[in-house]
C-alpha cells in the first residue's frame, strides 16, 4: 500500500505544483489589482470581473471565439469525415496517402501560423495567386475583418482536419463489414448505407470529437499569435491571446488572471455540457 503512494507521488506532486497550485494562485490573483510595473498589490474584490464585462476587447474576443469555434469545428468534422472515408478505401499507395495526411498534424502550430501569414499575403501569397488566376481578384485577407476571421478558420482547418480524419478512420475500421453487405443485399446504395449505417454508428465518436475540438478551439493561441496578432483591431483575438496580451504586454497580472478565470469557466461549462451529451450518446449505442 505504501508502495503505491510512493509510485504515484512524483506524478501527483509534479501536477500539483505546476498546474493545481498555480491555478489556485491565478484565482487568488484575480481579486487583486496587481501589476509589476505599477508595483501594486491591492485587494479589489470583484472589480476585475466587473471591468471585464465592460471591456470591449473581451467582448470582441468572445464574439470571435464563438465564430471561430462554431465554423472551425463544423468544417473540421465534415472534412475529417470526408478524408477518413477517402483513406478507408483500398487503393495503391494508400499507406503513402495516410502518411501525407499526418504532415499537417505533425507540423508545429507556430510554424504553420507563420507560414500561413505568408500564404495569405495579398500580393505574393499562394492563396491569392490561385484566386487571381481564376478570378483576377486579390482579396485583402488580413486587412478585412471578415476575411481575416475566415483566414484564421481555414488555416486552422488545414492543420487539424488530419487529426480528426485519423480518429474517424479508426472508427470506420471498427464497423463490421457484414453490416454493409447485408445492406447491399437489401438494395441500399452507398449513400444510403453511409446515412443509415456509418453515421449512426460513428455518432458518439463524432460528438466526442466535436466537444474535444471545440474546447481546443476556445483555447487556441498559436494560429492567432502568428497569423493575425488578433487583428485587425481585436477582431481575431482568442481568449488565450487576450490573456497573454494583458499579462505580458500590458503587464496587468490581476486583470489578466480574471480573464483567464473567465476562460476557464467557459471551458468548464462547455466540458461538463459536452461530457453529459457524449455519455448519453455512447449509452444509446
Amino acid at each position, binding site marked *: 500500500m505504501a508502495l503505491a503512494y510512493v509510485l504515484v507521488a512524483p506524478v501527483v506532486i*509534479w501536477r500539483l505544483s505546476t498546474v493545481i497550485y*498555480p491555478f489556485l494562485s491565478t484565482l487568488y490573483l484575480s481579486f487583486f489589482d496587481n501589476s509589476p510595473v505599477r508595483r501594486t498589490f491591492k485587494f479589489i474584490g470583484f472589480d476585475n470581473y466587473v471591468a471585464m464585462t465592460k471591456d470591449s476587447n473581451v467582448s470582441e474576443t468572445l464574439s470571435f471565439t464563438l465564430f471561430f469555434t462554431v465554423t472551425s469545428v463544423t468544417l473540421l468534422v465534415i472534412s475529417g469525415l470526408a478524408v477518413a472515408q477517402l483513406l478507408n478505401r483500398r487503393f495503391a499507395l494508400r499507406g503513402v496517402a495516410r502518411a501525407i495526411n499526418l504532415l499537417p498534424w505533425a507540423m508545429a502550430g507556430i510554424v504553420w501560423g507563420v*507560414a500561413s501569414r505568408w500564404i495569405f499575403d495579398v500580393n505574393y501569397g499562394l492563396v491569392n495567386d490561385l484566386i487571381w488566376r481564376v478570378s483576377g481578384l486579390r482579396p485583402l485577407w488580413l486587412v478585412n475583418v471578415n476575411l481575416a476571421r475566415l483566414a484564421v478558420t481555414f488555416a486552422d482547418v488545414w492543420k487539424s482536419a488530419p487529426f480528426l480524419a485519423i480518429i474517424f478512420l479508426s472508427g470506420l475500421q471498427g464497423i463490421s463489414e457484414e453490416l454493409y453487405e447485408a445492406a447491399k443485399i437489401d438494395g441500399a446504395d452507398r449513400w444510403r448505407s453511409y446515412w443509415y449505417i456509418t453515421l449512426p454508428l460513428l455518432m458518439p465518436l463524432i460528438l466526442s470529437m466535436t466537444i474535444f475540438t471545440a474546447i481546443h478551439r476556445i483555447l487556441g493561441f498559436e494560429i492567432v499569435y502568428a497569423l493575425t496578432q488578433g487583428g485587425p483591431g481585436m477582431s481575431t483575438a482568442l481568449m488565450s491571446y487576450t490573456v497573454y496580451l494583458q499579462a505580458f504586454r500590458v503587464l496587468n497580472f490581476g486583470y489578466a488572471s480574471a480573464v483567464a478565470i473567465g476562460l476557464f469557466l467557459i471551458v468548464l461549462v462547455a*466540458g461538463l455540457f459536452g461530457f453529459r451529451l457524449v455519455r448519453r450518446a455512447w449509452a444509446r449505442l
Partner: protein
Amino acid sequence: MAIGIPRPSPSRVWRRLVRSIPFYMMLFVFLTIILLPIYYIFLTAFAPGDRLFTQPLSYVPQSLELTRFETVFKGLPIPRYMLNTAVLATTSTLLALFFSFLAAYALARLQFPGANLVMVGLLASTMLPGVTTVIPLFQMYQKLGLMNTLTGLLLLYGSGLLPVTTWVLVSFIKQVPPEVEDAARVDGAGFWPLLFGIVLPLIRPGVATMFLINFIAGWNEFFTPLVFARGPSAKVITMALSEAQVIGSSTQFYQSWGNMSAVAILATIPIFILTLIFQRQIVEGITSGVFK
C-alpha cells in the same frame, strides 16, 4: 490465376475504372491541398534572391539556393536552438514516461484508497488551460531563478505530458495478464526487476508510441518557451521564426519571408522524417490517447 473464376471482361474493367474516377479526383484534390502549402514553403526558402516575388508566382524553381539558410545560420544561434529543442523534447518525454509508468503501474495493479481520485484528478487537471496557470508560474520562476533555464522549461514540458501518458499506460498495463507477474513472483523476482524486467518489455509498443507522440509535442512547443525562455540559453527553434524576420536584408519586408521559411524548414524536417518513418505507431498513439 485462380481456376474457375472467369476473367473480367474488358468492358467491366473499363466500367470499374470509370467509376473510380471521382474517387481519384477527390484523392488528388486532398493531396494537393495538403502538399501545395508545404511545397510553397520549400519554394520560398530555396528560391534565389527576389525570384519569389513575381505575379503570377512561378511554381517551378529556376534554381535552388542555400543563401537564406546561410543568412539564418549567420544571424541566429540556430545550432544552439536546435540542441535546446532536442534536449527538451527528449528529456521531458523520458522523464514523463518514467514517472507515468510508475504511477500507471500502481493505478492499474495495486488497490489503494485514492486511486480513483488520482485518475480523475489527472484528467480534470487537463481542463486547466496553460493561460490559467502561466502568471503565477511566471512569478514563481522569477523568484526561484528558473527563468531562461532548460530545467524550468523541462518541468513544464514534462508536466503537460503526464495525464494522457499515465492514462494510456494504465490501459496498456491492464491488458497484461496478471498470471505473467504471478509466475515471475513465484520464481522469486523482486518488485523492481518485475516492473522493469517483465512489465515494461510487455508494454513496449505502448511506451514507444507515447514516446513518439510526446517527443513531437515537445519539439513543437511554443507558448511555454515564449513566456519562460527569453535568453538564448534556453530558446528553442520555434522561437527563431520571428527572429528570422528581422535579420539580413530585413529592410525589405518580403525578403524576410525567405528567412522565415528557411527556419520553418529546419524546425519541420526532423518531425516530418519521424512522422513518415513511424506513421503506424503515431496513428496508434493518437488513437490510443483518445480511445483509452
